[in-house]
């Protein structure tokens, strides 16, 4: 499961745009990852401009 560091997140939504599982939602300033849908592909980790996401 990908971990979110909310202190580093700039809420840009780039991670949402690469999540083929539709597991990520950006609700205003807060990223939410649906643990049921996330398949740990780590695509979101690569695209994050701020290192706010950490893969397993």
């Amino acid at each position, binding site marked *: 499961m990908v971990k979110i560091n909310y202190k580093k997140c*700039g*809420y*840009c*939504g*780039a*991670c*949402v*745009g*690469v*999540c*083929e599982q*539709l597991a990520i*939602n*950006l*609700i*205003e*300033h807060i990223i939410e990852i649906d643990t049921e849908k996330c398949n740990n592909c780590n*695509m*979101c980790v*690569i*695209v*994050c*401009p*701020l*290192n706010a996401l950490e893969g397993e």
Partner: protein
Amino acid sequence: MMRELNDIYDVVVVGAGPGGCMASYASAKNGAKTLLIEKSQEIGEPVRCAEAIPSIEEFGIEPKPEFVRNIIKGGILFSPSGKKVIVTQDKAQGYVVERKIFDKYLAIRAAKAGSKVVVKTTAIGLEKDGDYWNVIVEFLGEEYCIKTKIVIAADGVESNIAEYAGLKAKKKPLEVCSCAEYEMANVRLLDKNMMEFYFGNEISPGGYVWIFPKGDTANVGLGVRDRKKKAIDYLEDFIENGMAKDRLKEATPIEFKVGGAPVSGPIEKTYTDGVLVVGDAAGQISPLTGGGIYLAMDCGLIAGEVASKAIKMNDWSEKILKEYEDRWKEKHYEYLMNHLKYRKILEKMSDDELDALAEALGESLDGVDLKKFVKRIITKKPSLLKYFKDLL
């Protein structure tokens, strides 16, 4: 609750960026009952963009001082070793705007044309309901179901809405340019009306660094496509050690912006029964420059026109809505695909080759069309021809 959430619409537009606002404007103006949904509590915020746009006069929008921060005459491109190439033509000219004010202005313009607008309202789902769509939204922790004939998905790089409707809109991570930017005061500019672009595999692989003058400030940022290092780290490095470091010594940030620019070209299909996809969500953004405001606005306008026409015809099936894709492709597809081609060439070149390219091009790109461009390379740097021969 906002009373707008308790109604049935002809057209619901998700996302109040420039594309969504123009779509709502055109849809409402042509008589369709329209709702524009924005998830932020403030339209225009957070800014994810370098804020440069080409001409907006063709949309009948006056470049008002309330949102225009600067007039741009062109750009100065820097090769990795610092060789300069100047461009002052066509799309290199335009404005740097305050996006927070500009987007709000466009939303007000849509409202004045008759569109309803809701804010702090997030679309979290989409369900087919006979000939209608139910847009599931959340506002202040409550769920609402909004019935509509047509949904225009203008939800940006996130592009969940198109996916809910069964279209393929998600991107690969290395097809999204990861951007970080400081808007800074006290930047010593080379020319207050010229944008600066810096290229190089060391400073910003898969993208470039920009300094866009914005009146009292400048947007200093970059985009990268890279697995090793983050955009923010490249940016701090450029400010500290980059080619413009002496002119950034006194600079200090007044805003921080991040974003993802989908630079893989347009998505495969931008329409289906009762759904149109617009702007970044549709990949309507230059794969070369990452510029997308103008494209989103123009395609949004077309989407709003086609949607309202479909409502008048009482047929919003994909057969009718296909007109949207036909029209935007007719105007912009070749441009987008050419820019994708150019980007793919540039990203293959080493820093030495980029320097050689800048040398071959000479000081100015003005008046240089593709033929002249390739001719300069053939005569001055034939070793680079392998990259460009297919363009002829």
